[in-house]
C-alpha cells in the first residue's frame, strides 16, 4: 500500500519538480562556474609551470594581487571609468529623455536614431571610434587641423593624457540609448495631471523636475545606476578593442587584468583571485545601492 501524500505536500513536490530543470540549468551555467572560480583563487594553477601542478596556497594569490601595481592601476581605472561613464549616461540620458518626451515634429525619427549606438555591436562601435579618433585621417582631427585649432592631429586614444577621457566618451555614447530608453519609459508613466496641478500652483520647470520627475523616477534611476555600474565595471570588449589597456596602462581595467593574467600569462589562480575580488566589489556595490533605495522608499 503506497504512502498517501496530502494535497499540500503533493503541490509542493509538483512545484519542486517544475522548477528543478531551471535550478539545475542555472546551477550548471552560473553557480558552478562562479563557485569554481572562487575556489580556484585559493590555488596555484599556472599552465606554464605544469610541473608544479595545482596546489592549495590559501590567500597567497590575493596577497600577490594586492602588491601588484598593475592591479591597483586596473582598479583605479575601472572605478574612474565606471563612475564617469555612469554619471555621464544618467545625466545625458535624463536630458535626452526629457527632451524627447516633449511633443515636437520628427520626434519618432530622433528617438529611433538615438537607439542606434545601442544596437551597433561593440566591435563595430570600437572601430568607428578608432577611426573618428585617428590622428591623421580621423574626422575629429581633420576638423581641428582644418580649423587651425591644432597643427597636428591629437592621438586621442594613444596618449596617456587623453586616452581615458576618450574611452569614457565612447562608453557614454554606447550606453546612453539604453539609459535614455528606460528613463523615457519612466517619464511616460508619470501622470500628466501632476504637472498640470504643479503649474496651477505656480511651480517652475525646475521645481516640477525636482519635486515630481525625480521622485517618480527614483526607483528607475536606482535600477539604471546599479545595472550600468555592474555592466561597465565588468565590461571587457569595448576598452580592449579601443586601447587594449594602453597606452602604458592608462586605460587598463580589472577585466583586462583578468584576461591578460589568465590567457597571456596563463596564471589561472591569480586571474581567479582578481575575478573573485570583482565579484565581491560588484555584489557589495549592488547591496549598498539597493539598501539605500529601500531606506529612501521607507522614509
Amino acid at each position: 500500500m503506497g504512502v498517501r501524500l496530502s494535497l499540500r505536500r503533493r503541490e509542493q513536490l509538483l512545484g519542486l519538480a517544475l522548477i528543478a530543470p531551471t535550478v539545475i540549468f542555472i546551477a550548471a551555467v552560473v553557480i558552478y562556474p562562479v563557485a569554481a572560480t572562487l575556489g580556484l583563487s585559493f590555488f596555484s594553477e599556472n599552465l606554464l609551470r605544469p610541473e608544479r601542478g595545482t596546489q592549495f596556497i590559501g590567500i597567497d594569490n590575493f596577497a600577490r594581487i594586492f602588491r601588484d601595481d598593475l592591479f591597483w592601476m586596473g582598479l583605479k581605472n575601472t572605478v574612474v571609468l565606471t563612475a564617469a561613464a555612469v554619471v555621464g549616461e544618467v545625466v545625458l540620458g535624463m536630458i535626452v529623455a526629457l527632451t524627447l518626451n516633449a511633443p515636437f515634429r520628427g520626434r519618432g525619427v530622433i528617438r529611433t536614431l538615438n537607439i542606434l549606438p545601442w544596437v551597433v555591436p561593440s566591435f563595430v562601435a570600437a572601430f568607428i571610434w578608432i577611426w573618428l579618433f585617428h590622428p591623421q585621417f580621423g574626422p575629429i582631427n581633420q576638423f581641428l587641423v582644418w580649423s587651425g585649432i591644432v597643427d597636428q592631429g591629437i592621438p586621442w586614444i594613444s596618449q596617456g593624457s587623453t586616452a581615458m577621457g576618450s574611452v569614457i566618451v565612447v562608453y557614454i555614447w554606447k550606453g546612453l540609448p539604453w539609459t535614455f530608453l528606460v528613463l523615457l519609459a519612466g517619464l511616460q508613466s508619470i501622470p500628466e495631471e501632476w504637472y498640470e496641478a504643479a503649474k496651477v500652483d505656480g511651480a517652475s520647470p525646475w521645481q516640477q523636475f525636482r519635486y515630481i520627475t525625480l521622485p517618480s523616477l527614483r526607483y528607475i534611476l536606482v535600477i539604471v545606476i546599479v545595472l550600468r555600474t555592474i555592466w561597465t565595471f565588468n565590461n571587457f570588449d569595448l576598452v580592449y578593442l579601443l586601447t587594449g589597456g594602453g597606452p602604458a596602462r592608462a586605460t587598463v581595467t580589472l577585466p583586462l587584468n583578468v584576461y591578460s593574467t589568465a590567457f597571456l600569462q596563463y596564471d589561472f589562480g591569480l586571474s581567479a583571485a582578481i575575478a573573485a575580488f570583482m565579484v565581491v566589489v560588484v555584489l557589495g556595490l549592488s547591496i549598498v545601492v539597493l539598501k539605500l533605495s529601500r531606506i529612501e522608499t521607507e522614509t
Partner: protein
Amino acid sequence: MTWKNLSRRRLLTAASVGAGSVAAMAALVGCGEVQTVTERVVEVVTKEVPVERVVTREVVKEVAVEVEKVVTQQVEVAVEVEKVVEKTVVEERVVTKVVQAEAMQRKIETVTFWDFETRALGVAAQEAWLARAGTHAAVRVERLGVPFPELEPKVLAAKASGTLPDMVWSQPDSCWTWAAAEIVAPLDDVHAAIGANKFGNNPLEATKLDGVSYGIPQFLWPHIMYYRMDKYEENGLDEPKTWIDLGENGAALNNPPDHYGFFTYLKDAHPKLAWNLMPAFDAYVFERDGSVALGSQGTLGSLLLAQGLFSISPPGVAGNDEGAGRTAFLNGLASHMTSSTSFSTGLAAAPDDLLSKVGAVAQPSVIGDAAGLAGMNILNITTGSKHPDRMMELFVSLFDHEIYQGWFISTVLGWAPTLRSVQEGTDYWESARVKPVARLVRTGVEASNKAWPSGAKYGSEGASLLGTVTARNVLKDMFTKVSDGGDPQAALEDATAEVERIVADAG
C-alpha cells in the same frame, strides 16, 4: 651518313641529345652502367670539330669525311645514351614504384599539425609541401589552422589534457616557453638526420634552450629597415649605414603633417620596437644566468634612440601597429620604417612601381654585432606525438633541398628561406615571383645573421619569465612612456623594477 644528308637540324639534334645525355649522366653519377658511356662521350667531345668548319658548305672533302665519322660516332653514342637514359628512366620508374610500393606496404600514418597560417596561398603551398614530403615518409599530415592569438592557449590546454598534436608551429619565444614546459621535444637527432650546417647559426640558436634545439627553422621574416630611395635621391642623401645616418636622413625628410621621417609603432601584441632596437645596443632582458639585465646602459641607449625617432614620427605611436605603418609607408606618409620581409608582398603589388622606389638595409648595430628582430617560424615535434619515427622521416623530407625549395618558390612572397642551400643557390632568387623582390628578401637573409628573436639575447634562459614580461607589456609600456613624453631613465627604472618583481613572484 653523308654530309649532304646531314642537315644542320639533324646535327643540332644529335648535338643536343649528346649534351642532354652528358647532363643526364652527370645527374646519374654513381650508377656503374653509365660509366663506360661517359668515357665514350668524353672521347667524342675531344674529337669534336669546330662548328664553323662543319657548317661551311665549302668544307673540303676529307674534312667532310672526318665530320661524318665524328657525327656517326656522336649519333651512335647518342643512341647508346638514349638507351641508357631510357633504361635509367625505366629504372627510375621502377625505383619510384618500389618506393611507392614500400610506402604502400607501410601503413600510412596520419599525423596532426597545428599552424596559424591564414593566407590562402600560404595554406595551399604549405599543404602541398607537407603532402609531397609526406609521401616519402608514408605520412598524411592533417593540418588545423588555429588563429595566432589562440594557438598558445590551445597548445597549453592540449598539454594539460594530453591531446597535443604531432607537430606545431612556433616562434622563438613560444618555442623556448614550450620547451621549458616540455610541450615540444628536443630535435637534435632530427637535425643530425637532416644534416649539419643546413641552417644559419642565428636561426638555429633561436630554436635552442640550454644548448638543445627544440625545432627546425622553417622560414624567416626578419625586420629590416625600408626607406624611400626616391626621396633620398631627390634630397641627395646616401644609403644609410648607421643609426646616425638613419636619424639624420629621417630628420632631413621630416615635413609634418604631410610627410614624416619615420613611422614607429607600438600597438602590436608583441613589443616589436623594443625587439628591434634593444639588440642594436646589446641590451636584453635577462643575463645568461637568468638574472635581470634590463636596466643596462644599452637599454637606456635604445630608449634614447626611440625618443629621437618618435620626434620625427606621426603622432599616436602607441596607437599604431605594423599594419598601419605599412599602409602609411605605401601611401608615402613616411620615409623610413622597420618591417618584416613579408612587406615585400605589399610593395610588389603597390601601384606606380613603388617597389623600385624602396630600398632596404639590415638594421645597423650600435653596440656589439647584433641588431633587429629575427622574426622566424619554427617547426616543432611535440612531446605528445604518437609517431616520433615517422615525424623524423617527415622532417628529413621537408628539409630536402628540392622539396623545400619547391615549396618556398610557391609560398608567401617575402618569407626568406632558412635552408642555406636555397639561400646560396640561384634557383629560388631567379624564380619569376621572387626575382622582383629578391634584393629585399636577400637583405632579410643578411639581417637574420645578426638579428635576435624577441629582442632577448638570453631570453631562452628565462623562457617562461620572458613570456610573462611580454604578456604584461613591460617592454612595450617602457617605450610607450617615452613616446608619451616620459623620461627614458624613469621608464627604464619602472620596467626593471617590474621585471625584478616578476622574477621574485616566480620564485
